[in-house]
């Protein structure tokens, strides 16, 4: 193992996280390389020195502040919550059900009796004729009926 390959493995060697094969390879290199052996020793020393920093405890107010912030968080609403029972939804549903029952209980409208239908059937040709005549083009070319003439005729008859 070359010294440059040591770089990736030296920390693992110092903190004992190397695999057995890698560790043996490293030890073999260290037995012949003074510079790397020195570096390993110094890294170990750094590792020990880092233990000297004290642990800081969070302030007494930390928990209280945290709980207050969590309590102030708005409740998360998902769309399933829309289906959650509520008095307003229950009231609206019951009103809708009542309206449907009321509409269903009304007597059904029976607009035409059998006699009326017979009468319509009898007059159906007249209606059909009316449809034909109202759209009959030659008739539209005729002059309008002379109503005034009829009226003057009537007056003359009365005078006679």
């Amino acid at each position: 193992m070359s010294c440059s390959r040591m770089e990736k493995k030296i920390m693992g060697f110092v903190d004992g996280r190397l695999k057995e094969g890698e560790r043996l390879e490293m030890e073999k290199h260290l037995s012949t390389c003074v510079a790397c052996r020195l570096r390993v020793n110094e890294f170990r020393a750094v590792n020990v020195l880092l233990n000297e920093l004290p642990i800081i405890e969070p302030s007494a107010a930390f928990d209280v502040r945290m709980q207050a912030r969590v309590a102030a968080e708005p409740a998360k609403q998902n769309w399933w919550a829309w289906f959650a029972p509520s008095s307003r939804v229950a009231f609206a549903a019951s009103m809708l059900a009542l309206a449907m029952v009321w509409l269903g209980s009304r007597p059904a409208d029976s607009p035409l009796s059998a006699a009326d239908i017979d009468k319509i059937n009898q007059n159906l040709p007249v209606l059909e004729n009316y449809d034909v005549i109202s759209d009959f083009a030659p008739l539209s070319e005729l002059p309008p009926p002379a109503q005034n003439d009829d009226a003057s005729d009537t007056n003359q008859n009365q005078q006679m």
Partner: protein
Amino acid sequence: MLDVKAGDEQSFTLLLHRYRTPLVNFLYRMVRNREQAEDLAQEVFLRVYRAREDYVPSAKFTTWLFRIATNLALNSVRDNRYQRMEISLDAPVTADAEDGDEKMPDVAEKHPNIEQHLIEETRRKMIRRAIEKLPEKQRAAVLLHKYQELNYGEISKILECSESALKSLLFRAYETLRVELAPLVAQQSRQ
């Protein structure tokens, strides 16, 4: 975390109690300000709480937690840097202003000899400053590796880099620390 997801508020309190100290320590070493570290730790927990319903246990909870914390810390360090540049280039915030944050509660009882206490305090200050001098990503790697004892796989997920890149990052960080702490390292090596 799965209990928190299921709506168990007590489990969130347990998570808070279990992880608040490591989180505050990690963030303090990253941002170098206790008040800010606590604010960031609260932000981390709040994000965990908000995301509880969407939590998928694809990775270890600690990996997820420290990933949020690291991202917040790195953003905060960058923001602080710009803020300091805006305030004054001549009067940067020094680590001395924060030295009072790490108080040993029973220093007098532990060290009746004031000289011994001063020596230890000086050593701690040197170590703290050496860590603070590291580039933020190297600093995060050292803190997660040394103090949180996370494995390479977890740390590389947190820092979003390959394991190989992480090993290089740690090597460079320890190289810098070795140089910065040379007097202490020599002393330690002799012991």
